[in-house]
């Protein structure tokens, strides 16, 4: 199943890549090449920023949880260490 999924995932990626092979674009409307490029750049920028922030926040939170759980002076019941959920380091 896992292999099948990997194959399909790469097939999707291949499609994405192939989609841009047809680079010629006689019907592109923008009068300026910079404008066209600016739209592509800001598209990527706007997509990456929120995902980076969310990813960074989750990473930071995880680190904070670990730090707290490692700190000896805070008494954490053994049961809670186990039950702290997906941000904890588990039993």
């Amino acid at each position, binding site marked *: 199943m896992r292999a099948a999924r990997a194959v399909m995932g790469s097939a999707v990626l291949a499609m994405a890549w192939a989609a841009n092979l047809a680079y010629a674009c006689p019907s592109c409307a923008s009068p300026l090449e*910079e404008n066209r490029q600016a739209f592509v750049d800001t598209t990527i920028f706007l997509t990456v*920023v*929120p995902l980076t922030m969310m990813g960074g926040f989750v990473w930071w*939170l995880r680190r904070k949880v670990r730090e707290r759980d490692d700190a000896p002076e805070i008494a954490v019941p053994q*049961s*809670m260490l186990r039950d702290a959920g997906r941000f904890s380091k588990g039993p």
Partner: protein
Amino acid sequence: MPDDALGRPYGVPVRREPVVPNGVLGMLIFVATEVMFFSGLISAFVIGKSNAIGGWPPPGQPRLPVEETALNTAALLASGVALYFANRAFRKDSPSVKPLLGLAIALGGFFVLFQGAEWVALIGEGLTLTSGQLGGFFYLLVGTHALHVVAGFIILLYTYQRLSHHDLDRFTFWPAQIFWYFVVGVWPILYWQVYL
């Protein structure tokens, strides 16, 4: 794998201190939204800039004061650094927290005043909101940032006042810092995009 229903130890669970205090978490989420807001503005600016025929900045428009603003940028960054050291002092209960916080506030105030003087000069040179894309985007981006600086300035003044009354706690100071770091951190990007 044990079921949720059966696999947990018996006993009364304990409520834990939140990992991130409420105020900090709320401020972080708010700042994340602000980051997206500025991302939108910067994207708009990049696209607006790319539309200019005849290069950017558009010919016939006043030049933006690059060097003077570089000095101002340095002042704002220094304010961020001062705030950082103020926080370190605060955590150690050192008496130097008050002058450091004061320095941060003073540098922030300097930035606002300098920015205002610059605007007056630019308006005198004929750069207004409606004078073209350069003027529109300049006042939009820099003006929005200036509003945030003023807001952050007021928040810092509030913390200073709390500090003077000896009732400033970490849970007020920390969110205030986050907001000021955001205001400081977004400025170099705007400077790089708008002025350079």
